[in-house]
Every structure is written in C-alpha cells, then in structure tokens.
C-alpha cells in the first residue's frame, strides 16, 4: 500500500471541504471571518493543554476553541472596543500564549510547523474519524438551523421581528465554527484554516443563483483545490497546507472576471 497516506490525505481533505465550505458561506454572509481566524489562533493553546493533560490533542483544541468562542459570544455586546480590534487582540494573545505553552510542555515532541501550517500527509485514521464525525454533527446542526440562519444572514432585525431567536442561533453558529476550525486545523494549520472557510465561498459566489447552489459550489471547489494542492505538494515536494490554499486562491482568481461582470451589470 504505497499510497496509503495519500488516500488518507485525500479522504481527510474531502472531509474538511465538506465541513468548512458550507459553514464558510455563512461566515462570509455574516462577516464572521475575523471570528473564525481568532478561534483558529487559539488552536496551539489547545494542543499545549492537550499535552499537559495527556488527553487527545484534537479534543484539547476543541475544548479550548469552544471556550474561547463562548468568551467571544459573551463579549459581543461590549462597547469598549470595536469588535474586530478585540478579536485581533485575543487572537494574537492566544497564538503567543499557545507558542510559549507548546514549546514549554511539548519541547521537541510537538511538530510546531505541522500545527501552524497543517500536515495533511500525516493524518491518522483517528483524525479522519474526527473529521467525518464532525461532518455528520455540523451538517446535522446546519440543517436544523438552516432557515433561521439564512434569514438572519439576509437581515437580522427582520429575522428577529419574525420570531427568530437571533442571539441563540448566532451563538450556536459560532460554536459550530469553533468546532469545525478545531477539527480542521490538522489539515491546513492554524494560520491557514480561515482560508478554507472563506475562499471557496468567495469563489462559488460567481456561479451561484441561490444560497444552496453557492454551498454546493463551494464544497466542489474546495474539494478540487484540496486534491489539486495535494497532488502539487506530492509532485513538487512542497508543504501541503500552503499548496492547498494557493490552489484555492487560483480558483478564486479565475472567478474574479465573472464577479466583476456581475458587479458591472
């Protein structure tokens, strides 16, 4: 089985595309990219805590991400600072703390670069199990939240006036982002994960005539980019995470003329 690791990588990549692309469309619609980014930045802290407590590292990342998400949900109403400034402060503090904690507790045992930029070629069966369990859970939750989520993406006040509990739905959605980011970090890494949320959605916009089609398009484009990036990485011996992100960016760049034509109409 010479290509066993490649099959695992491809499976993991497709799983992550299924997980991140639909959520990513809502992230783009609701302008929550910065939030996703902040959650990702605390991933390393989760790894360190996982090592410290000798628990599954993915579980460590999930716990820390959910905790930070809940903190951010609680801070949504604050008026002391602009929301993106606060997110930026927390993100970088969490990343710095994570880097310190990881070197401290992990020493040489931790593959720091792997967590920062992803190591899809090293995914284990357990990682794949996490990812597909995530696909089922996040997918189920998204289907359940579909109508209220879409309604409030278009207009929050209107949705609220029509009886959507917008606070609860948004909190649930933010927890879903945190969970998704946490289990996808292994693939493209802390510093690149947000791209898997945002770029497929942005690229799919050019073709989409309905929210559902945009999501299907985003999943397809994401899966294509993951597989192409993987192939690129294996052929030219480049790091896989950045290769995937560049493939996504290339796909997005191809759609820009189309978007511009739509904008000019």
């Amino acid at each position, binding site marked *: 089985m010479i290509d066993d690791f490649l099959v695992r990588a491809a499976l993991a990549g497709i799983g992550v595309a299924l997980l991140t692309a639909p959520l990513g469309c809502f992230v783009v619609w609701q302008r929550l990219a910065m939030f996703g980014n902040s959650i990702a930045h605390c991933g390393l802290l989760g790894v360190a805590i996982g090592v410290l407590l000798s628990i599954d590292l993915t579980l460590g990342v999930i716990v820390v991400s959910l905790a930070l998400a809940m903190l951010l949900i609680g801070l949504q109403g604050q008026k002391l600072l602009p929301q993106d400034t606060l997110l930026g402060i927390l993100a970088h503090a969490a990343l710095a703390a994570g880097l310190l904690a990881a070197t401290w507790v992990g020493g040489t045992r931790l593959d720091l670069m792997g967590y920062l930029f992803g190591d899809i070629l090293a995914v284990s069966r357990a990682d794949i199990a996490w990812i597909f369990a995530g696909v089922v859970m996040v997918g189920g939750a998204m289907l359940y939240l579909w109508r209220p989520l879409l309604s409030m993406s*278009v207009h929050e006040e209107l949705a609220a006036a029509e009886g959507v509990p917008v606070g609860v739905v948004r909190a649930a959605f933010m927890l879903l982002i945190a969970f998704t980011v946490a289990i996808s970090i292994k693939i493209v890494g802390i510093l690149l994960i947000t791209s898997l949320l945002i770029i497929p959605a942005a690229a799919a916009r050019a073709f989409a005539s309905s929210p559902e089609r945009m999501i299907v398009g985003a999943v397809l484009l994401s899966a294509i980019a993951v597989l192409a990036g993987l192939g690129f990485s294996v052929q030219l011996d480049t790091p896989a995470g950045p290769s995937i992100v560049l493939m996504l960016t290339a796909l997005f760049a191809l759609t820009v003329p189309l978007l511009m034509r739509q904008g000019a109409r």
Partner: protein
Amino acid sequence: MSPSIAVLQPTEPAREAVSIRQGPSLITARSVGIDLGGRMVLDRIDLELRGGEIVTLIGPNGAGKTTLARVLLGLLRPTRGAVTRIPGLRIGYVPQRFAVDPTIPIKVTRFLTLGVRARPAAIASVLAEVGASHLANRPLSALSGGEFQRVSLARALIAEPQFLMLDEPVQGVDYSGEAQLYALIGQIRDKRGCGILLISHDLHIVLGASDRVICLNRHICCEGVPETIAAHPEYVRMFGREAGRAVGIYRHSHDHEHDLSGAVKDAACCADHTHD
C-alpha cells in the same frame, strides 16, 4: 406663517369612513421609557395603535423613531413602562432601507419566504398586490430602491399581518415612486384593514395618507389629524423654526419647488438629506 401642507389624495370625504373602520387596539405603549446609559432616548411614550388606522410617526433624526418601532415590535425591552400586544398579533415589518449583501445569492421569491412558508400562489398574489410581479425571479441585490421597498412590503404582507410597521418605506425612492408607494400603502390598509405605523421624516405627503400624525422627539411632542397638526405650537416649534431659514421651505405635493436661485427647496425636517 404656518407651513403649507399638501394633501396627496383627497382624504377629506374618507375621513369619517376611516374612523368608523378603525378596529380594536392592537399595540399599546404605557409610559414607555428607554434609558441608554443615563440618556433618555425615549421618555414617557403613551401610544395606542389600532386596526385599520394609518398612524404616521414623524420626527427629526435621533428622535427615537426607529427605537420606538423596535420597542413596539418587542425587539427592545423598555427600561420603563410596558408595551402590550394582543396575543398572537401578526406584525409585518419593513425595516429601514438596507443593503442586501451581494454575496448572498437570493432571489425575490426566496426572500419572501425566509420567514414563513408560503405556496407559490400566495407569493404570486402578494407580489401582484405590491406591483412587483415582474421582479419574482430577480436577484435581491439587483433591485432599485423603489423595487426593493415594494418587495420588502410584499415580505411583510405574506404572513397576513394584522399590523404593519413601516420604517421609512420611501427612503431611496424617487419622487414619483414615493407617491405611488404611499398610494399603495393606503390601498393595503383599505383592502386588508390592517393597522399601519408609518415612520417618516417626510411631512407633506405622509400627512395626506394618514389618519393620525404623531410628532416624536424623544417624547411625544404633539399628536393630531394631519390638517391640524401643522398648526400645533409644538409642531411649529419642532419644524417651523428651522424651516424659517429658507422661504417657503416645504415642498408641495406635485413636485419639488424651486426658489428664485433655482435650488430645490426642501423640508427642514428632512435633516438627513439636503438639496443644494
């Protein structure tokens, strides 16, 4: 000199009929106050909104009009006092003109059913009612101001509301479209018998279409039927003094008026836009 107010439609003969048609009280506010960090945004608001009645709420920017709408809708809890809505009241809401994020690919028919499920026939009928049948398959982000307001109105109507809350429904609509929209709002009331609260900064046209006018500036300054409200001392105090800066400040119903220099005269109450 009291400001001249043009009445868009001849509403005089209809006045009696309207008051007879007025239905039961739907939403009641009792000495409602909103305190935002020590600043009273709304103070001692007493208000009763009934079925079949068009009430126009006017006031300068920052008067708390939208805040009051949010309180009445139940989106904002009053710091003081209470708002009661009759149980199960169905409210249709047209929020202030908003830009739909062009990254959300959504068509008009889909937009109408985001809040409630509706059969295609119901969607078609409500679009026809607001004169927007031809827009059914257009992307929401490609609509003009007037088209968008009609579609918003259709969305508010699709759940068969007993009460309509319209926040600046003619914002971003050109002048002829404005008159058409007001006429449409009148027709909707006549046909459906629902109560309507119309929020506006535009005095002259609104006044003709409504049964009652309420002037708000954090508190209710004055209240009355359109024909008498303009003479109310509080009204003159609120709008008249600023209006005095230019001569003949109010636009009339048929078109813009121009002063001798050719500049469009504008209603001073519309402090959020100026023509120069």
